[in-house]
């Protein structure tokens, strides 16, 4: 009886951890799918699209997550095959330095202009 109880507890806890990890997997999967562009749609993510292409991507992302790939690895997998265009989060590389840094630069320039206009002493 006791062994049965122990066995049951172990079995259930494995079951529960599966449930929890499948929830985490789901969250991760959705996060990734929202970041992938549906290439045959006009401006939709794979998450939002019901097209053939989107369904295939959903399946393959699911498979790769189950195989243990990390988020970045999944993106890399897709980028190798489809180019940077497929991922909505632009990587920081030589193509996108201006993209990421220009707004921040402008903010600093704005700050400099502000400094000139604002009087601090009484």
């Amino acid at each position: 009886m006791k062994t049965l109880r122990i066995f049951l507890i172990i079995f259930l806890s494995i079951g529960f951890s599966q449930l929890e990890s499948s929830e985490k997997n789901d969250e991760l999967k959705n996060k990734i799918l929202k970041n992938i562009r549906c290439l045959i749609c006009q401006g939709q993510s794979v998450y939002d699209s019901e097209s053939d292409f989107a369904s295939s991507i959903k399946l393959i992302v699911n498979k790769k997550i189950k195989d243990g790939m990390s988020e970045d690895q999944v993106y890399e997998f897709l980028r190798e095959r489809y180019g940077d265009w497929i991922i909505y989060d632009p990587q920081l590389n030589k193509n996108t330095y201006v993209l990421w840094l220009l707004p921040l630069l402008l903010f600093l320039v704005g700050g400099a202009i502000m400094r000139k206009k604002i009087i601090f002493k009484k």
Partner: protein
Amino acid sequence: MKKNLKLIIFLIFLIFCFIIFYKGLNKPNTYTPKNNAEKNLPIFKSEDFFTNTPIESKKVFGEKSYYIVNIWASWCVPCRKEHSLLMELNKNQSIKLIGLNYKDNLGNAKKFIDELGNPYMQILIDKDGTLAVEFGAYGVPETFLIDKNKKIIKKFVGPLNRGIVEEIKSIIK
């Protein structure tokens, strides 16, 4: 003087923007597979169309030859149109055709082949479309040209036409 300098810089910037937008108008705004970079052949496992036996990519692309991977389906109308061009390519000795049956019903697919002929050395089954994704395909029909070093050197989205066939023929000479 400083004011004029600012004006001139700003004007140059505006003209630059104008040129960019003008040129941008003539570019298609959707994906264009400008993939002229070589890609490695994906490593995968699939099943053979006729025998249903599992098969590995190494075995499929075993020989040192040019390969064409053509994604097709019985429900795909443009696939019918390009089929005769595939039959023609098959006559060429230096190229081997591999078919990828995409999201299809096996019975209908077999009927398609019976009706139009089989240009493929081998056909693989891609029931859920994931194998096509491994190749970096957008959908169906789509054709890939693979060179003797097992690299994907060309991708043709959409049905083949005369121009593409000539291009392929000139590459594999």
